[in-house]
């Protein structure tokens, strides 16, 4: 990374309170362009809240959030999306009564400059339609092109969820537990898919599956009770005693136990 280039995403002293409960307590985080960062932590650590703050679902109570050096805190989700950040959701958040093809196309229209046009036919937007088919091929849903989103299987819905997120070509991608609820083999295939579709992009992901985390991430941020406990390479995080104590120890023990059972 050139030293003059601002980080893709930067959080400076970000706090979020709901009433008197402080969920995020002064998070500082700097993610370089093209970096893949996984955010891990126990349930209720504030991982999803952090994503909601960055993507504009809520505004932070205090602190600054910068996208490519530009402050975005307090902006509306669509403004942040237009600035080049796109996110997926933990629970699939699709356009249920539209076809798979339409779902992806809806995610492309603004990005490809069609805004609120009502004087052009969708069928005539050749570039949009070609790009939609490309995305469908990438997420391997081209055979389900004309199915309604609500009729897809769970794994297909997860793929469509990621497809909508990456379709518009945002440079910063936030994936909230993309593999949640998937079987082992589905997860492996899906991680490969995520790797493919996010080439050259900045990726932030919340993930519970440690196999996925250690395989996918350049750096890992450990979030515990709304604070970043560690932010380092996978090896360093694994070796970190505080992380072991606070979180990873129990998770690793659990996954070993699960492995022994299987």
């Amino acid at each position, binding site marked *: 990374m050139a030293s003059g280039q601002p980080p893709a995403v930067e959080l400076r002293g970000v706090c979020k309170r709901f009433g008197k409960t402080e969920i995020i307590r002064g998070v500082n985080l700097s993610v370089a362009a093209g970096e893949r960062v996984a955010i891990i932590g126990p349930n209720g650590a504030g991982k999803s809240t952090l994503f909601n703050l960055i*993507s504009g679902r809520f505004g932070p109570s205090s602190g600054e959030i910068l996208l490519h050096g530009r402050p975005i805190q307090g902006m509306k989700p*669509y403004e942040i999306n237009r600035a080049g950040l796109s996110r997926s959701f933990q629970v699939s958040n699709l356009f249920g009564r*539209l076809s798979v093809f339409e779902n992806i196309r*809806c995610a492309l229209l603004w990005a490809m400059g069609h805004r*609120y046009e*009502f004087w052009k036919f969708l*069928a005539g937007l050749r570039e949009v339609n070609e790009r939609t088919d*490309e995305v469908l091929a990438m997420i391997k849903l081209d055979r389900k092109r004309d199915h309604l989103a609500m009729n897809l299987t769970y794994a297909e819905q997860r793929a469509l969820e990621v497809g*909508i997120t990456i379709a518009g070509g945002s440079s910063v991608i936030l994936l909230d537990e993309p593999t949640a609820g998937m079987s082992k083999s589905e997860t492996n295939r899906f991680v490969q898919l995520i790797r493919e579709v996010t080439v050259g992009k900045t990726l932030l992901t919340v993930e519970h599956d440690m196999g996925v985390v250690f395989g996918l991430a350049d750096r890992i941020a450990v979030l515990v009770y709304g604070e970043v406990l560690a932010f380092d390479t996978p090896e360093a995080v694994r070796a970190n005693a505080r992380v072991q104590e606070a979180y990873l120890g129990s998770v690793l023990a659990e996954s070993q136990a699960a492995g022994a059972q299987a």
Partner: protein
Amino acid sequence: MNTSTAHSFHFKPYNVGRWVIWGGFALLLIVAPQVFRSGLSLTLLSQMGYMVIICLSYNLLLGQGGMLSFGHAVYTGLGAFFAVHAMNLASSGSLPLPLPLIPLVGGLAGLGVAALLGYPSTKKAGTPFAMITLGVGELVFAMSLMFPEFFGGEGGVSANRVYDTRLFGIGFGPATQVYYLIAFYTFVCTAAMFAFTRTPLGRMLNAVRDNPERVEFVGYDTQRVRYLAFMISGFFAGIGGAFVAINFEIVTAETVSAIRSGGYLLFTFLGGATFFFGPIIGAVLLVMSSVLLSEITPAWQIYLGFVFLFMVMYAPGGVASLIMMNLRVAAFGKLGRLWTSYLALGGAGAVLLAALSLVVEIVYHLQLDSSGDGSVKFFGVMLNVSSVDVWVGIALVVATALGLFEFVRRSFLHEWGEAQTEIEKEIKRREAAL
């Protein structure tokens, strides 16, 4: 399957089906008054024409955008008032505007009013949106009583549509000429609204209906999408409203009332909000029931209430979705085995209808005929309703009819479910064979 997907070639055949449907629609509009020649049918057809525009414009909100508006008559009604004033200005010579352009005055008025009132309305979606439209509707209706200069007070505003005969000697005096003007606008507006559903904004409106939250995360301001759609809907509503003025040559405050708004909602729903053509069926039903059903019985609104309840409970997709579901069953060749169930359902339905109408008619007659001898004539039979026996009998008949209908409905549902399961299997099989 991984090869050549990136540059898949889409064969776009000359869409014959679409030409047949739109050609057929145009032909129907042209031929209808030649087939139904009586004065009454011409009145009905004219009203159906602009009701189609109004119901389709309403469905732009309800079906396409998921916006349940309780105040659509504001936009049709104010369109009608602006149109009637424009007609008066034109006939006094101060506005050089031929009658065929008056609907555009209504449309622009609808657009303008929607731009003004739609802004606060579309700030919210869901229940708050519905409440705001209800409030706005009440507000405008109250204003109609406060400003008699514009709304004409009790008597309304009247006009004469025959003020200019320079256009090939067409003066729009005869109802036929008015019908063809309406038919022309009906076709153009229907085509325009259908075209809208195939544009970027039209599609994003569907997306806002399905999942407004996600729309915000793909770059769109949902409020802006709703607002633009609301204005477009207002434009077409105004055109439809202008024809109320042209057709009746009088517009009263009732045109902007909540009752009218409720009617548009009710019949758009009955026709079917989930399909584009549903509201066209709804408009036809609206005119048929308000003109023809009201001839048969003074209690027609009670029957309408029953039908509405029945549809909400058993066929929430309206007539259009009933048609489409049966077409699907027919396409898979399964309609043949359902016909006995349909016959039974129809029979039980008729019995239930007869039983319910017995109660409705008797109660209605008792209210109206205060002559007091307690006898009511029903289908040529004199019933003495002051005796307890008759009421016990009626209660038995209604209970039996309800039981019979419910029994038949359940067995029909079973048959229907089986047919659907078979169709699903068939679809899966075809997909696997692909």
